[in-house]
C-alpha cells in the first residue's frame, strides 16, 4: 500500500514536472469537477431511489390500509348479517313451531348484493333453513365440509373459509358460484330443547374482487392479492392463471411475513412486498410492486445520468482547456520572452497584460533585466575604465632605467664641466615630469603633448650624442586640440631604440600634428630600417606578442597606446603603422578633434587619479631605459 502510494506520488511528480500550467489547471479543474459531479449525482441518485422506495412502500401501506378498511367493512357486514340471523332470528325461534326461511329471506334481501346464501344446519348436517335456494343436493354432506367442522370445533368464533365453489343447493341453472363462507356455531331451540347447529353465510366472491380490483399499486405496475393464514390464495387478480398452473405466486412465503414492507426475490425477480393483516380472518393483504419495473425507470434514469456526466465531462474538459489557456496565456507569453532573453536576444518585449500577479511578475522581470543590463554596462564600463586607468598609470610611470641613465648623464656632464648641457638635460627632465603629471589630468592639449615629446627628444638626443635629428611641427589649430597624454613618447621611444640605434648622425625623426576633417592626426615618422609587413601586421595585435628580432622590445608600448586611445575614444581611433623594410616607419595616431569645450568636458568626466608613482614596474620599457 505504501509502495503503491509512493509509486503514485513519483508518477504524479513526474507528470507534474513535465506538464504545463495549462495542462495541470485543466486536469485539476476537470478532475475536481468530475469527482464532485459524480459524487453529487450518485448521492442524489441513491437518495432519490431510497426516497422513491420509501415512498412506494408508504404508498403501498396506505393503499393496503384503505383496502383493509373496505374489506373490514365488508366482513363486518357479513358478521352483522350472521349476528342478525343468529341473535334476532335463530336464537329466539323454536324450530318445532317456526320456519326460519321467511325471516332469513328478508335478511338475505337486505344484503343480496354481497350475499350468495344463508343457511342453518342442524348438528347432524341436516338443512333447517336456507335462502335463496332452499333444496339441498342429494349428493352433498354439509357435515363433511371444512366450514362446518371449523364452526363445531371452535364454537365461540366466527370462521371465514377460503374461496370455494358453493355446491350445496340445487340450482336449476347449474350455476356454480365461488363464495367465501362465514360459519359459526349456533344454539337451536327445538321443542324447548337446545341443540347445536351451524349458521352459514356465503359471501359473494365478487364482493372481494370489487374491493381489490381497482387497487393502484406502484403507478399501475403492482397488484394486490389476499392469502389466508395458511398461505392459500383468497383473491388474486390472476387467480385463474395460478389455478391453471400458468402462473406462480409466492403466497406461502407472504403468509409468513410480518406486517410492513419487505424485499423479496421470487423467480429471480426482485420485488417489494407490503403486507397487512386483516382483522378477524387472519387473512393477509399482500401488495406487490416488482422492483424491476422500478429499475426500468432507474435504469433509464441512470442512463440519462451517465449521459449527462459524459456530456458534462466533455464540456468541462473543453471549457477548462479554453479557460486555462486564457488564464495561462500571459504566463506563457512571459515564459517565451524569458526564453528569448536566455537565448541572448537583445530586444525582448517583456510587457505582458494579464492578472495582477502576472503583470507584477512581468514588471519585476523587466526591472530586473533593466537593472542587470545597467549593472553589466557599469561593470563593462568600470572594467574599461580600470583597464584604461591601469594603462594610463603604466604609461605615466617613468622607466627607472631612463631616469637613472639621464641622471647618470647629468652627473657625467657635471663632472666634465658641461654644466650647461647638464642644466639643459635637467631642465628637460623637469619639464618632462611636469607635463607627465599634468596635475593629475589624463587629457592635455596637443601642444603639451608635443612639448613633452620635445623634451624627451632633447634628453635622448643628448644621451645618443646627436645620432639623429628631430623635427616637431603642428598645423594651425592642431595644438589647441586635446588628447590623452603620453601617447607620442612611447612611439618616439620605439623609433629611437629600433630606428636610430645604428644611425650615425643621419637619423631623422619627424613629428607632425594636423587635422583631418573631424579628427586630428599626430604622425611620427623615422628613417630607420623599417619593418616587414608581417611584423607591422602583428605589432598592434592585442592577442599576440611580437618580439623584435633584435630583442630590444616587444612592441607592448605601441599596443598600450593603441588600446588607451580605443578605450577612451572608440575603436575607430588608434594607431596605424606604415612601414617597409629599409624605408623607415610612419606611425599615425588618429584622435577625435577635441576642441576646447569637448576637451574640458572630457577632463571633467575622467576620474581624478592619484599622482603616478615612479616606483612602478616599467613593463613597456626597454632595457636601456626610456619613458613609458
Amino acid at each position: 500500500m505504501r509502495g503503491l502510494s509512493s509509486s503514485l506520488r513519483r508518477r504524479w511528480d513526474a507528470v507534474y514536472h513535465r506538464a504545463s500550467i495549462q495542462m495541470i489547471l485543466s486536469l485539476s479543474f476537470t478532475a475536481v469537477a468530475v469527482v464532485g459531479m459524480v459524487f453529487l449525482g450518485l448521492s442524489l441518485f441513491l437518495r432519490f431511489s431510497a426516497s422513491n422506495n420509501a415512498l412506494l412502500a408508504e404508498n403501498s401501506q396506505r393503499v393496503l390500509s384503505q383496502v383493509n378498511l373496505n374489506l373490514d367493512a365488508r366482513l363486518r357486514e357479513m358478521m352483522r348479517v350472521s349476528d342478525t340471523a343468529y341473535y334476532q332470528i335463530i336464537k329466539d325461534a323454536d324450530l318445532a313451531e317456526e320456519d326460519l326461511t321467511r325471516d332469513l329471506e328478508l335478511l338475505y334481501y337486505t344484503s343480496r348484493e354481497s350475499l350468495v346464501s344463508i343457511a342453518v344446519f342442524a348438528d347432524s348436517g341436516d338443512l333447517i333453513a336456507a335462502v335463496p335456494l332452499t333444496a339441498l343436493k342429494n349428493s352433498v354432506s354439509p357435515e363433511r365440509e371444512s366450514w362446518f367442522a371449523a364452526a363445531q370445533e371452535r364454537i365461540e368464533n366466527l370462521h371465514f373459509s377460503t374461496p370455494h365453489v358453493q355446491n350445496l343447493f340445487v340450482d336449476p341453472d347449474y350455476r356454480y358460484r365461488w363464495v367465501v363462507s362465514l360459519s359459526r356455531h349456533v344454539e337451536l331451540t327445538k321443542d324447548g330443547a337446545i341443540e347445536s347447529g351451524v349458521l352459514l353465510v356465503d359471501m359473494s366472491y365478487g364482493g372481494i374482487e370489487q374491493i381489490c380490483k381497482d387497487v393502484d399499486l406502484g403507478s399501475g405496475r403492482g397488484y394486490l392479492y389476499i392469502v389466508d393464514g395458511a398461505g392459500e390464495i383468497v383473491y388474486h387478480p390472476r387467480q385463474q392463471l395460478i389455478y391453471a398452473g400458468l402462473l406462480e405466486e409466492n403466497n406461502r412465503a407472504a403468509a409468513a411475513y410480518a406486517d410492513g414492507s419487505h424485499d423479496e426475490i421470487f423467480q429471480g425477480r426482485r420485488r417489494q412486498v407490503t403486507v397487512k393483516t386483516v382483522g378477524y380472518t387472519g387473512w393477509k393483504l399482500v401488495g406487490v410492486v416488482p422492483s424491476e419495473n422500478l429499475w426500468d425507470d432507474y435504469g433509464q434514469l441512470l442512463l440519462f445520468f451517465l449521459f449527462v456526466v459524459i456530456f458534462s465531462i466533455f464540456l468541462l474538459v473543453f471549457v477548462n482547456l479554453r479557460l486555462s489557456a486564457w488564464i495561462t496565456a500571459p504566463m506563457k507569453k512571459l515564459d517565451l520572452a524569458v526564453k528569448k532573453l536566455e537565448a541572448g536576444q537583445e530586444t525582448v518585449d517583456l510587457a505582458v497584460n494579464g492578472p495582477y500577479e502576472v503583470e507584477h511578475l512581468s514588471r519585476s522581470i523587466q526591472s530586473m533585466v533593466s537593472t542587470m543590463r545597467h549593472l553589466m554596462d557599469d561593470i563593462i564600463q568600470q572594467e574599461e575604465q580600470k583597464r584604461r586607468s591601469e594603462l594610463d598609470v603604466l604609461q605615466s610611470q617613468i622607466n627607472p632605467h631612463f631616469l637613472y641613465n639621464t641622471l647618470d648623464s647629468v652627473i657625467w656632464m657635471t663632472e666634465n664641466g658641461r654644466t650647461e648641457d647638464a642644466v639643459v638635460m635637467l631642465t628637460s627632465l623637469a619639464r618632462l615630469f611636469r607635463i607627465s603629471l599634468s596635475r593629475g589630468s589624463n587629457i592635455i592639449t596637443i601642444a603639451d603633448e608635443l612639448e613633452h615629446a620635445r623634451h624627451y627628444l632633447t634628453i635622448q638626443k643628448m644621451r645618443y650624442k646627436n645620432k639623429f635629428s628631430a623635427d616637431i611641427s603642428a598645423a594651425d589649430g592642431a595644438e589647441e586640440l586635446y588628447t590623452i597624454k603620453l601617447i607620442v613618447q612611447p612611439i618616439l621611444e620605439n623609433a629611437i631604440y629600433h630606428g636610430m640605434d645604428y644611425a650615425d648622425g643621419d637619423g631623422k625623426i619627424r613629428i607632425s600634428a594636423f587635422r583631418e576633417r573631424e579628427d586630428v592626426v599626430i604622425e611620427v615618422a623615422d628613417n630607420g630600417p623599417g619593418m616587414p609587413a608581417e611584423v607591422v601586421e602583428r605589432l598592434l595585435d592585442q592577442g599576440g606578442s611580437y618580439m623584435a628580432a633584435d630583442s630590444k622590445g616587444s612592441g607592448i608600448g605601441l599596443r598600450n597606446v593603441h588600446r588607451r586611445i580605443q578605450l577612451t575614444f572608440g575603436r575607430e581611433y588608434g594607431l596605424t603603422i606604415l612601414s617597409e623594410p629599409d624605408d623607415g616607419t610612419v606611425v599615425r595616431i588618429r584622435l577625435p578633434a577635441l576642441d576646447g569645450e569637448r576637451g574640458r568636458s572630457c577632463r571633467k568626466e575622467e576620474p581624478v587619479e592619484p599622482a603616478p608613482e615612479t616606483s612602478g614596474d616599467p613593463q613597456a620599457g626597454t632595457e636601456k631605459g626610456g619613458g613609458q
Partner: protein
Amino acid sequence: MSQQRFTRWGLPLLMLGILMALLLMLTLYPARAQQRPELLEMSVIAREADGAAWANARRGMEQAAADLYVELRFLYPGQSNSSEEQGQLLRREVESGASAILLFPTDREALAEEARSASAKAALVTLETDMETAAGYVGVDNQALGEALGRAALNGVPLGGTVLLIDGAFAGSGIGERMAAAADLLELEEREVRLFSGTGDALEEALARGEIRAVIAFEASKLEQAAEVMSRLEHPPLLYGAGSTAAIAAGLEQGRITSAVAQNAFSTGYLAVETAARLARREAVEPLEPLPFFTVRRENMYEPEYQKLLFPVTW
C-alpha cells in the same frame, strides 16, 4: 477554417452537439416500462354456432388478450361443424388482414388448402385438432384422450358388452381421432362398438332398447346432449365423455355422467392466444407439449384441484 482552429474549436463543439442530440433523444425516448407492443388483431374461428361449450376457454383467451395487448374477434359459423363455412371465414379473415387466427378445425382435409394459404399470411394456431399446415397447435393428445375414455368405459362394460360412440361427423378432426382411439381400444378389449350419429331423440330411442351398456361422447356439446338424454331414461347406461362445462359438472354431480375427461380449458384458451401472439410478433415460441387432461368423477369433482379445473373463478 484552419486545421488548428477546427481541432481547437470545431471538433469539440461538433462532439458536444452530438452528445447533446443523444441526450435529447434519450430524454424523449420513452422508458422501456412504458413501451407497449402494437395492438394485435386476432380472429377466433369457432367450430360450433354456439360458444357455450368453450366458455372457459374463451375466458382464458380474454385474459391472455388483456395481458398481451391483443384484440380478439370471435367468429361463429352459421351451422355447427361446417368446414365449408370455416373455410370461408378463414379466407375472409386473411383477406381482411388479421395478423393471427385461432381455429377449431372441423375437418383437416377440407380446410387444408385454406389453412395453408392462411398460414402464409397470418399466424395460424389450431385448437382441438392439430394441422400440419398450421403454425401451432394447443390442445390435448387426442389419441391418448380417446384411449382414456375407452379405458374408463371398460370398467363399466363387461366383455362382449356394447359401447355406443357418439359420432358427430368429426372424422377429419381431433375429436374423430379420440373416437377412433377409443373404438380401437374397446374392440381390442372385446367390447362391441357401435357408432351413433343423430339427434337427442334418436339417441334416446337407441338407448331405450337397453342393449347399450355405455355411451361415450367425445366433445362437450355431445356429452351435454347425451347427459340430457340420460336424465329422461329410467335405466340409463353409463355415460363417459370429454368436456368441462357447467352442465357437464351438473351431470357428474347428478350421476348422469359417470366420468368426464377434462382439460383446463382456461389455460388452453390462454396458451392459444399467447402462442398465436408470439408467432405474429415474430417472437421465439417453444414447441408446446400436449396439454394434460384429468378424469373427473362425482366423488372427486369438488376436490380443490378439480374444483379449480371445472369451475373457473368468476366474480
